[in-house]
């Protein structure tokens, strides 16, 4: 449990070994790679198109923002599994191993609680979006096409947090 700040790990130690998880992290990793690549390509295409035709696709903005939200949730799920979220490590990583483990479990449990809550509340939000036939402001597609991902990914993140909680309990 020498997890340091996420930025530091990302920068200094890209090959850090992942712990074993029941559901492979490859799922999130591939989605992350695809969404990042899409974001870069869409934005770049936008620059090129505007440069050559002096028009811009306003609608790409809505899609890009949506993809960014997906990125935050999908890669955020992997970050929860890898326990790399931004936190104050000073107190959590000092003291006896038992205390460290207890605090790590408590942290994972809190992530779980928040995202279970988020899953319930956002399901209700999606239900409202469908019931009232809300449409998105830019393109005019049904709003639930976008909002449906929040409950789905919240469940995934809660699952990752639960996994972390169990793994932290197991390790002596």
């Amino acid at each position, binding site marked *: 449990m020498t997890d340091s700040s996420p*930025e530091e790990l*990302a*920068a200094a130690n890209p090959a850090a070994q992942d712990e074993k998880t029941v559901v492979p992290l490859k799922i999130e990793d591939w989605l992350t*790679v695809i969404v990042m690549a899409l974001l870069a390509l869409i934005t770049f295409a936008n620059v090129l198109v505007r440069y050559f035709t002096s028009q811009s696709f306003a609608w790409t903005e809505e899609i890009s923002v949506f993809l*960014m939200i997906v990125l935050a949730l999908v890669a955020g799920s992997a970050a929860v599994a890898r326990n790399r979220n*931004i936190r*104050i490590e000073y107190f959590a*990583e000092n003291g006896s191993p038992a205390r460290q483990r207890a605090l790590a479990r408590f942290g994972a449990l809190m992530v779980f609680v928040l995202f279970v809550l988020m899953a319930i509340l956002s399901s*209700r939000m999606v239900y409202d979006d469908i019931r009232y036939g809300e449409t998105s402001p830019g393109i005019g597609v049904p709003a639930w096409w976008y909002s449906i991902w929040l409950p789905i990914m919240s469940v995934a993140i809660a699952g990752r947090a639960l996994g972390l909680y169990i793994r932290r309990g197991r390790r002596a």
Partner: protein
Amino acid sequence: MIVSFLFLAFIVMMLIGVPIGVAMGLAGSAAIALANADTQWFGLMAVPQNFFAGLGKYPLLAIPMFVLVGSIFERSGVALRLVNFAGAIVGRGPGMLPLVAIAVAMFLGGISGSGPATAAAVGGVMIAAMARAGYPAAFSASVVGAAASIDILIPPSIAFIVYSVMVPGASVPAMFAAGMVPGIMVGLALMVPTVWLARRHGMGKHEQELGRPPFWTSLREASWALAAPVLILGGMRAGWFTPTEAAVVAVFYGLFIGMVIYRTIKVRDLFVILRESGELSAIILVVVALAGIFAYSLSTLSVIDPIARAIVHSGLGEFGVLALLMLLLIFVGMFLDGVSIFLIFIPLLLPVAKFFQWDLVWFGVLLTLTVAMGQFTPPIAVNLMVSCRIAGVRMEETVRWVLWLLAALMCVTLLVIVFPELALWLPRRLGY
């Protein structure tokens, strides 16, 4: 009652290591529920709505793109070429290698938006070379860690993007322009104690033996890297791109350099680069989204105004308040990264800044300077942690060197407070 509950729960959770964003989300949700106990669903529908609203802002898209730029340039071999070129200019002598490290970190700051990425890129090249030249590892780690902190001041900077999303009236280009002069000043200010310390303690005795790189060859090799900030900052200035677009142009430019010119990035590496930068961006973005819930709960409970009023009428006066705020932020900066600090404190500080009629662009630069200080103040310093790991030293060993560098940064901060024009001249000149 509810208010004290909100803050207490938040602070306790944060201290015992619950992820910052989660602490904000939970405390915010609890406060919303307590305040709306008699409404349907306890008013909690605001939680997912604010999560979406907190994230759904186009300027935030610049964050994943600039993180990606940092990750690409870190691997592209640009740092090495820049180091050679800078070495060819200043030559070899006591204190020259650390000087080069600072200069290159400043330059990379003009390409990437994240301090730890710069610390890794510069540290990876410089720390071993400095060890061979006879600099103590702790000294090298201090210099690189401090130099990488300039990154959040020199545009493009992720901290500035977050600040301008939160503060209406401080646009991203204005913030970028405002950070330029103070950022360069910090770089120069860091060079003074660095060279002086190196001379005084007789470091770098073997530097002469390294040989001076040939000027024209190293200029040619570095020219691709030298063009990058021109493209990014110049393109924004010329109105070719928005900050997000500038970032994405830099992404493809960096890939071109790395894959075609220097051949340091293979197709296989793209997966790692995209995954790492995607995850790092998500870590930042999730905090941004969950901070939206926290900010909403603060505004519905209307706690900001009373606190701001209490601060304003504390009898300390304008500069007393400012000094106190900065001390607080330096302290917090030792524990937390810049983006989280902005998300937590700006809702509280904005009314105070407005009361004293501080210029919000200037205020943002000041906050960023203080946060930069925190990023290499032991015991918990994001950038210093990276450079210490590369140098293989414990952070405690760096204290005797880092204090000098902190003093240099402190001097620049005081200058920016006394002469606000240092930050404000360039954005006005450029017409932002």
